[in-house]
């Protein structure tokens, strides 16, 4: 297990290198420049040349990439091309907020999805089952910006229950947390329900029942434990996705997180920020997957890790 973990950690290095390479090439291949600011007020060509030289984006692309890498290995992710901040500052400012929102949403999603998924599998066509179907249908089919704007109007404008502007107090967090959770809730409910149904029909469950075990024991230790394996698989990337923020939720609810930096940096062609945020995202995904693989072994001793 240790050997496996070490090998996986070492694999991180080439993975991140290729993510960096691909991101770098794609970002620079995209048309436009960080200094194309206002189409109706193009900067004079001499000013653009001056700015490009100032920020070193006039150099050959391989040179820029080598420079970037040599900085990145020393944890120097460079400076934004359009803003008065370093990439490290932009990330450290936004990430805690996004992570907090993401963890809240994940916990909410889990507390609703797991019981709901379990109950709806045990009692098919019950109100709980319909509720779970509704959540998974709404959560997957209606885009979060539609629900977001609708709930803002309902709770902010019509009922005056919740504030629209600002961030920080629990009242401000209710809507963004709930809407961010909805998507995760939808697929977690569906997966839980499906894998519960799958597990219930297994031979070992019949065996357990025929042994005369109490129904509760059968469900908890035999059905649920096995049904959780697919859930855990999805939970890894979902966690990484949630804590790195959602562009849509953060934009609609003015959450000062990292999710919107990601999209904004791309539209602005702010190469160092694109790189920094992408690498962070890749790193979190890899770590999340690794954690999931390790947790597998605990959930199901039959799954042997190939050392």
């Amino acid at each position: 297990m240790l050997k496996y973990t070490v090998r996986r950690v070492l694999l991180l290095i080439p993975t991140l290198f290729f993510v960096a390479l691909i991101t770098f090439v794609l970002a620079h291949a995209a048309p436009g420049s960080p200094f194309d600011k206002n189409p109706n007020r193009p900067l004079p060509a001499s000013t653009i040349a001056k700015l490009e030289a100032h920020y070193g984006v006039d150099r050959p692309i391989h040179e820029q990439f080598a420079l970037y890498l040599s900085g990145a290995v020393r944890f120097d992710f460079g400076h934004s091309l359009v803003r008065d901040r370093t990439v490290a500052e932009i990330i450290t400012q936004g990430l805690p907020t996004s992570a907090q929102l993401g963890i809240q949403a994940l916990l909410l999603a889990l507390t609703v999805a797991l019981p709901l998924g379990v109950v709806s599998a045990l009692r098919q066509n019950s109100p709980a089952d319909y509720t779970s179907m509704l959540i998974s249908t709404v959560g997957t089919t209606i885009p979060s910006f539609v629900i977001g704007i609708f709930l803002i109007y309902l709770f902010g404008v019509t009922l005056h229950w919740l504030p629209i502007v600002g961030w920080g107090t629990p009242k401000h967090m209710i809507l963004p947390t709930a809407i961010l959770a909805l998507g995760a809730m939808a697929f977690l409910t569906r997966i839980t329900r499906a894998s519960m149904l799958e597990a219930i029909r297994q031979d070992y469950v019949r065996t357990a029942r025929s042994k005369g075990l109490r129904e509760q024991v059968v469900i908890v230790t035999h059905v649920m434990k096995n049904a959780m394996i697919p859930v855990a698989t999805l939970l890894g990337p979902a966690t990484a996705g949630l804590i790195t923020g959602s562009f849509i939720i953060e934009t609609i609810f003015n959450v000062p997180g990292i999710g919107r930096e990601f999209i904004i940096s791309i539209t602005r062609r702010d190469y160092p920020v694109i790189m920094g945020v992408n690498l962070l995202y890749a790193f979190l995904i890899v770590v999340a997957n690794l954690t999931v693989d390790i947790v597998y072994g605990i959930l199901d001793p039959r799954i042997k890790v190939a050392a």
Partner: protein
Amino acid sequence: MTQRRKGIWSVPAFLMILGLIVSACTSTQGPEAQTGDYDPNGELITNMGSEPDTIDPHKASFLGEIGVIMQVFEGLMSLDPKTLKPIPAAAAKDPEVSADGLTYKYTLRDGLKFSDGTALTAKDFAYGYTRTCSPQNAGDYAFVLFIVKGCDKWYHMDPKKETPAALDAAKAELGIKVLSPKELEFTLIEPAAYFPSITYMWVGMPARESDVTKGGEKWTEPATYIGNGPFRLAEWKHNERMVFERNTNYRQEVKLKKKTQVMIVEGAVAFAAYRSNELDITGVSAEDQRAIDSDPALKAQLSDSGGSCSFYYGFNNVKPPFDDAKVRLAFAKSFDREAYIKDVQKIGQPAKAGFIRHGFPGYDETDTIQKFDVAAAKTLVGQSKYGALTNAAFSGLKITYSSNARTKARMEWVQQQWKNNLGVDVALDPVDSTAYTALTKKPETTPQIFFLGWCADFPDQQNWHTTVWITKSGISAGRVGYSNPEFDKIVREADKEKDKAKRDDLYNKAGKILSTDAPAAWVYYDASPVLRKPWVKGITSTAIDSVTGQMRLWEIYVTKKS
């Protein structure tokens, strides 16, 4: 397995339906219009959109950024809200101009202070202007100061390649001199009557060298971002809000105690926040327009301070058939601008006169040369070297645009107009944005017809005619390949002319030449409608505001809401 079928409607579904009904039926009005007294502790909350990239006055180039700067700093000059002519702000009076028109001497008001109470002197202004020209600073907007002696040269030096001695020598040659703690003198490279208008701009805001050195790149954080404007920056929560407080050391009494600018990026959310009274002022998008039209209370809160931009269809002036001015003018006269606003743009004004938009010095109502007139257009084509619209030169015309839904609608509209009015088929040619940017850089590759615009930096004809249409270096002229030596001669003469009336006449003459030459077809002038709560008072807006009420911020107040 037990099966129960009690109905499909679960609790959440019911709640959602209920929510829809409630929000559809309830009126979303806030408290009724209040006409209370002036609130000395009043706070105004507005939206500034996205987080500014920088609020460094010597670097900034975006509207929201400039808006912040204009609240915290005050330039030598400001603009008269009615005429947009420069008027003294931190300067005590209009600058004294030398007989040759090359030097401008500004005298500061007595007793000026920074917001922390320390004295503000001419040295701080000189530092600000110098910093904008500095090659190390590499600000976006340095070019507006290239009229100042030595600025162009110093700015374009490469600080990595030049010796410190050479850089210092170039800096020493700058035409920015402190004559006394209250007097500052600029030396220009040529006479420029528009120079006082430039000294209203953010590029010339005063700053203390000690703050900039101490804060380094972070000098724009509240601790060191010390200005001389009506407000001081009290708090900056990045990506969330900026809080400004009344500057008690400002040269006049400031009525608002506090001003908060939140950063809502999504227009629909800002509109909701306005309706729930969480914002006092908000901009209006074309999508909000219908909700406003159907609600009389909201409609009463709507006002428009105008815009600073002019938009036009550019022609490739060096390729047939648009190498003939008569053909260009004919096309410019063959679409209905009023209908364009109604059908396509929704927000804005049809370009009734020339290139310079209404609300700006130099707007010339008598310039109706490009007026919609199909009969005249057909006559013009007859007089052109192509003779008739049946000429082969008019087949296979293309209108090129960077493909997105908004530009597509604009292009389809004009395509239809030219088809109906002139019977000419113009094909749509959407290209991806890289190809588009590359194509529109120079006239050799510029499309036959494409969409362009210009937004003024400062209110003077020089910033319209000379900056945009002078041969080669003109921002639009360079792209469409327009060149008329007569136009160039007149605008260059006007740039240097000291007599105001003569100067205006010259620019008007140039404007008419431009409309007749029709390097582009003027389409519309933009607008900036805003919603404002009835308790917000004392706002004087101008067309060039970066922040609402920019030119007279200290007069804004709110009334007591209870």
